């Protein structure tokens, strides 16, 4: 595998006056409680992970668990208190000001939780802003920004001011702005939370389509598990600054690493997460019907087909070879039952 685009090695972010000294004294054993007693707040606690090119990592966790802070560290909006961060092999914390600015101008884009639009600029000017900062001619940047306005479906409103837009519309401006420079690495902090369900679904689909085409490396924060499942290659679950588990959606649901993750995923509809191959029987029984399903299908998509069968259904791989079988009863079991005693 090629070099990871984002690589974090035990990253810490601790807020407070003497954070650095406290971190040193803690010797890698950071405990949120003791820190708090000493007037420090632990934002991110020993985060180590990698994100490879074209991958989408979704970060989840309760409010205040440090998701935004982690993102800020990786974009170096705040300096991490400890640890190392590499962006495409470059040591982020060692970049000087100019290199950092170059990195941001050309490689990174970010969508903010609270939109963070410039109140004195119109929609169009907001979107063109990063381009203008980069030094692109006004005319070109305005044209490019206009394309972006169309992309997020705000045409006709390009001369409005942020205060004249609804929350969802403002967020779309934020998305358009972050895309204007065509960044390779894209940070999104709850980008779709302010959108209504219809637009949200539309934007998610659009987002996936874009991602298919552009293959950006993405870190995406959301509170919505459905959204995470729809988009994520891998999911990280955070609690009190610690990444409790970072794995594929299926593993998170099927093999929660900690009690917290199990609780967190309890209510998640399995059929949306699991693939046929996660629940099929390896051996092929003799009693197989005519229907064949691919092992890479999500259960939800084929459940209806399988449940109308009486016999066991054959499971095939991508070369159409039968690799296993699945019984309708098993589907029923996965969807409706046995959440607690699921291995």
């Amino acid at each position, binding site marked *: 595998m090629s070099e990871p685009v984002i690589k974090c090695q035990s990253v810490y972010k601790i807020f407070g006056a003497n954070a650095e000294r406290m971190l040193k004294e803690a010797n890698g054993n950071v405990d949120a409680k003791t820190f708090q007693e000493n007037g420090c707040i632990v934002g991110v606690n020993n985060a180590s992970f990698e994100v490879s090119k074209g991958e989408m990592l979704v970060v989840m966790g309760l409010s205040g668990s440090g998701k935004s802070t982690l993102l800020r560290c990786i974009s170096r*909006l705040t300096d991490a208190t400890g640890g190392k961060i590499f962006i495409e092999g470059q040591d982020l914390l060692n970049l000087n000001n100019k290199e950092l600015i170059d990195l*941001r101008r050309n490689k990174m884009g970010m969508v903010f939780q*609270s939109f*963070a639009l*410039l*109140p004195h600029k119109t929609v169009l000017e907001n979107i063109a802003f*990063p381009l203008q*900062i980069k030094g692109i001619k*006004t005319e070109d940047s305005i044209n490019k920004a206009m394309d972006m306005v169309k992309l997020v479906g705000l045409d006709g409103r390009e001369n409005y001011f942020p205060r004249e837009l609804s929350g969802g519309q403002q967020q779309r401006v934020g998305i358009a702005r972050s895309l204007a*420079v065509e960044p390779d690495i894209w940070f999104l902090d709850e980008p779709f939370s302010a959108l209504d369900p219809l637009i949200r679904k539309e934007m998610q689909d659009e987002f996936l389509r874009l991602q298919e085409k552009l293959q950006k490396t993405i870190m995406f924060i959301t509170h919505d598990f459905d959204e995470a499942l729809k988009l994520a290659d891998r999911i990280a679950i955070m609690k009190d600054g610690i990444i409790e588990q970072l794995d594929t959606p299926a593993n998170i649901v099927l093999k929660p690493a900690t009690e917290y993750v199990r609780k967190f995923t309890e209510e998640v509809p399995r059929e949306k997460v699991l693939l046929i191959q996660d629940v099929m029987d390896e051996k092929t029984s003799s009693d197989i019907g005519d229907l064949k399903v691919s092992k890479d299908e999500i259960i939800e998509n084929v459940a209806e087909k399988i449940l109308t069968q009486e016999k066991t259904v054959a499971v095939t791989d991508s070369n159409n070879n039968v690799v296993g079988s699945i019984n309708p009863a098993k589907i029923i079991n996965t969807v409706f039952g046995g959440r607690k005693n699921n291995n």
Partner: protein
Amino acid sequence: MEILKKYPKLFQWLFLLVVFFALCFAIDVPETYKFIRGQAEFIKDPNQSAFVFLGKEVRYYAFDVFWRLPPLLGWLPIWINDSLFFLMNDWMPMEFWNEDTQEYKTRPLVLQITRNLTAFMTFLIELIREILLGGLETIVAFTSWDWIDANPWAELPGLPWTIVAAGSAILAYKLGGKGLAIYALLSMTYISIFGQWKPSMQTLSFILVAAPLSFIFGLGLGVAAFKSKRVEKALYPILLVMQTMPQYAVLVPALVLFGVGDHAAVIITMIVAVPPMILLTLLGLRAVPPEVIEAGRMSGCNNWQLMSKVLIPTARRDILIGVNQVIMVCFSMAVISAFIGAKGLGFNLLLALNQLNIGLALEAGLCISLIAILLDKMSLAWANKQVDYFGNLNFFQRNKNSLFFGVVVIAGILLAYFGSIYFKDGYNYLFEVPHNKGISTAGFWNKGVDWIFDTFFVYIKAFNTWLIVDVLQPMRALYLRMPAIATLVLVVGAGYLIGGIRSALVVCGLTLFIALSPWWDRALVTTYMATFGVLVSCAIGFTVGTLCFQNKHSRNFMLNVCDIFQTFPSFVYLIPVMMLFGITDTSVLIAVIVYATIPATRYTIEGLRSVPAGLHDAATMSGVTKFQRLFKIEFPLAFPHMMLGLNQTIVFALFMVIIGAFIGTEDLGQYILKALSDKNGAGIGLTLGICVAFIGLIFDNLIRTWVDKRKKHLGID
């Protein structure tokens, strides 16, 4: 006893009052005490005591220390004076190259610096002045008198008034559209036709130098303070004092440092106008949401871009208020600095007031106000201007304003030229209407004043007498009757009850400074006048504000009225009251009331408006009547904001009381005015200014502390 437990604070306040009154009654007025009028302090009197500190002798009338503290700070003004003198004349002499005599000359460093500053300011003012009015100083500055003698054509002819008027209308149109353009054209034409052109342009040239410089410095220092805690800490105390320091008081030391003239006026104006600009810049920058800054960072801004393209524009609202303040102060100073020899409308205004020619004063005051409003509106419009990217304009459309201005210039020159042929009698009215040849309404106004006086004399006099005899004099006597210790106890106690030990100490320090200065009695008079003004202003302001708030149109109307009134230089307020009440304390007090009612009204409306709309709706939905809503919800929530209005009201009132010295009041202002014409007045002027500033700061500290607590209590902030 139940009541005591329920309202412990109330009891504490009552206790404080009881102590205060007990002290007042316990300490008798010493027999030798009399309110000292006029110059008495400077006359050597065998009854006086004296002490020597730092080699300065201080003489004073000694009383029981409980009654009046001895003026232990009496040496301070003399010391300031001597220090300034030393700085200017003896400190760090250095060799400087002298252009005129072509040789090195020894000069003290400070003197050299102030001289260079002076020369620079003079150059700027002259440059603009000569563009507007004609002259040759600027050319001479680059060449020499000999050269001008050889080439007399090089003298700048000055722009005909037609061009300036039309030009400002075009600029106003470009910035703010039709309405502003019409206003600009009308006011410029008015100024010209009424023969006020020359002084107006002199004032304008002064403003055009002072305002941008103040803006730049204020913004720059504000940004510096935002970026560095250390700068902020260093600036903050100065800013606080400057905010409440009457502009009058700064005149005197500046007189010593920079001499007499327009340049000194510009420098003083900057000293006065920069602090509010700094404060507002800082306030605005602080309020920028951190995520907006981060968004700027992520867009790849470097520090400069972040400041100029993200932070400052986002903080625009507060910075604009700063600009508004700068312009306000500049016009105010344009009048006040006439005391130290600035030319223009202010000089005419003061002269007219001195001669009791109300008509002339009114005309000059009107011109100043017209220009002030014009500049204020233009700067606002400029800051709010939008770019249209999709105009797809051709060359003509894009440059139509410049082209049009070109046409106007040519037309104006032609007009002026034909005018010089047409008006043979020596006055070219199409070039400039001379001062005494314009239409003058002065006679009309003066007749009006006379008529009012003749017709209503009895009533005005009766009112005057009643106010002075039955209200003001008793009030003043009461204030003067307070023993110094009692006042101190009252103020410090209030500080302690409101803000704890810290507040008490601050307030104690401020009060002690005044009490130990030689002007405690005068300060009491200032305070009494200010108190009276503030009480009446607040009563009017809060009522009017609340009434106007009930309806959207009246609310906006009132805010606009406040805006416009605020732009008037403070001296202008003296004109109408002198018209009606002549030279009495009543005039000053009415001017104080009118002037101080502006912030009271404005903050009431804005305070009520700051009550969240959601709460408003929620209250309406729970079936509250309008009155209940006002008293149960809106007033309590708006109260902190309204108290800040009270703060402003106090500062405004103090300023006006001090300016009132011009019509002859017997308070600190009188001494400041006197210091202006005193060769050794710098120290006295500055100390007096600090005294006034401290009176303001005492109230400022108490109110702010209270507001902060209240806000925390209400959970707003």
